[in-house]
């Protein structure tokens, strides 16, 4: 990759046939106008991409309305390891309830993140599905944090028998002393809550195909890695030195039955990586 010679040699070699002759001619108005427009568009893109990518500052804040055209195609989010790198294991687990002789029976918890990790565990080139719930975890946690205490309490249903309908959940979370901005956050939370319950329903249903699930809940688990200071300990002691996992269990929600094709796809994935 070293480059001892002058770069112009490179350019001479790649010169477009006829371009030198054209350059000697007086450029036409059409050509000048086109080049100016193209340069202007490219320069605008350079400036706006730079503004959108940089950490918050006065200039990028001022340009924010103008940079909104970049989403979603040109979204500039280069923060995989920044500002702080990922430093905890994050899991999503599911549990469901179904009816037997008029009584509700709950299933065992299914650690779905553990199943997904089967696609990447000990694989230098792993499957893309290995990180789905890993990424979903932080979005869910963020949406829940955005709710007020009152909103959280309103949807915290601990008994599957008292599982509310989705309409009731919406009424409770949007009506719990919520101002317009909180209502907006509640709607966003509801969207994510619907998705995670749909995933939980299909995951548990794939393992219990012969029952009709009526309620589902999920658990977010976060456990920080071994502290840096303890990194030289033997393996077992390093594991013991990890901080205790932090868990949050959702309220019970009405199950959202999947389609047959969705159920088959999840069941095949589960069998392959379980």
């Amino acid at each position, binding site marked *: 990759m070293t480059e001892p010679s002058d770069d112009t040699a490179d350019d001479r070699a790649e010169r477009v046939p006829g371009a030198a002759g054209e350059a000697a001619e007086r450029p036409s108005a059409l050509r000048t106008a086109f080049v100016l427009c193209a340069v202007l568009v490219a320069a605008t893109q350079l400036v706006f991409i730079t503004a959108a990518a940089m950490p918050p500052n006065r200039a990028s804040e001022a340009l924010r309305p103008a940079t909104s055209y970049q989403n979603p195609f040109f979204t500039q989010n280069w923060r995989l390891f920044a500002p702080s790198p990922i430093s905890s294991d994050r899991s999503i687990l599911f549990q469901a309830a179904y009816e037997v002789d008029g009584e509700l029976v709950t299933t065992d918890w299914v650690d779905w993140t553990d199943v997904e*990790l089967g696609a990447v565990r000990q694989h230098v*080139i792993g499957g*893309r599905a290995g990180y*789905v719930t890993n990424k979903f975890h932080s979005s869910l946690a963020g949406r829940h944090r955005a709710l007020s205490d009152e909103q959280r309490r309103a949807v915290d249903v601990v008994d599957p028998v008292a599982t509310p309908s989705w309409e009731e959940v919406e009424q409770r979370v949007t009506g719990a002393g919520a101002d317009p901005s909180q209502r907006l956050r509640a709607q966003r939370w509801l969207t994510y809550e619907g*998705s995670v319950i749909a995933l939980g329903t299909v995951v548990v249903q794939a393992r219990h195909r012969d029952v009709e699930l009526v309620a589902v809940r999920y658990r977010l688990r976060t456990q920080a890695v071994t502290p840096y200071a303890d990194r030289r300990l033997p393996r077992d002691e390093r594991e013991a030195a990890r901080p205790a996992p932090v868990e949050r269990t959702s309220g019970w929600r009405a199950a959202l039955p999947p389609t047959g*094709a969705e159920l088959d796809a999840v069941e095949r994935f589960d069998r392959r990586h379980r």
Partner: protein
Amino acid sequence: MRQLLEPATTWLMEAKHARRGLAVTRIVLGLIVWTQLLVNLPDRHYTWGDGTAWSEPIRSLDAWPSFLGAFVAADGRLFDLLYLATIASGFLLMLGWHTRTMTAATLLLWLSMYTTNPFVGSGGDAVLRMVLLYLCFTESGAFWSLDARRGRPTPRLPEWFGTTLHNLAVVLIIHQVVIVYVASALWKVQSPVWLDGTAVYFPLQVEAYSPWRDLLHPITSAEPIVLAATWVSVAIQLMFPVLLLYRPLRAIALVMITGMHLSIGLAMGIMYFSLVMIAVDMMLVSDVTWRRIEHEVRRRVGRDRWNDGDERLVRSATEPVRGD
């Protein structure tokens, strides 16, 4: 003013730059697309197909245009056909067959698939789609492609038109890769774990990003290694645009940043993310260097063949390479 503008105008309109570098970028990006889809073939329905129906409410929050809805609308065999079409387009992009069309087709198909699951994408996918878009305006098939073997078609538009677009796309690609590094470094320096030199340790302990489990632990827990990897990666990213300006430093920067990506990819099991960045970095290697590499490869291959008794190939290898 005229003295300032003239070199810029000449650079922009007289010659197409970085065509060999772009060819390498095209080849590696095509390789990434089709091999990645093959790796994910058994799990394709859970990752991008019928198994993603649960994410529909979140997917609908994104503002992707409806013409990218082919994979969302497809199920069963139609999905499989689209999946195979994406593999084929990536493969043909790598070979450089009708390169511009294949670049656009790969972009369209890849993006349509990408939008089906909001939780599968990575930073590498974002760079891939942006660079594929810019590549549509370049002559990335001018070298090391089936198009190049067939010969140069007569251009339908004036030469200056294509040259200007090509060079502006080159600028935009280089700018994008520089922004990835600089922005990432500026975010990092706000965090104490990057400043105290321990940041690299943490992701390597996370189960999702430690495919080697305890095998690498003696290395990833050694303080001098962690410290050096943390600080060098931030420094090289932050200084990347400056290092590009001076040719000897550019070579050092490219070697170091490629080493960084390979280390991340191998140690954390995110090889495709790393390969995308390496692919784009390769266009920063000058065409003179690529020509030398090509010449050297031809000479070595020719010599090996000669040892086997094929003298014709030796002769062709000593002839001037295409484009000289």
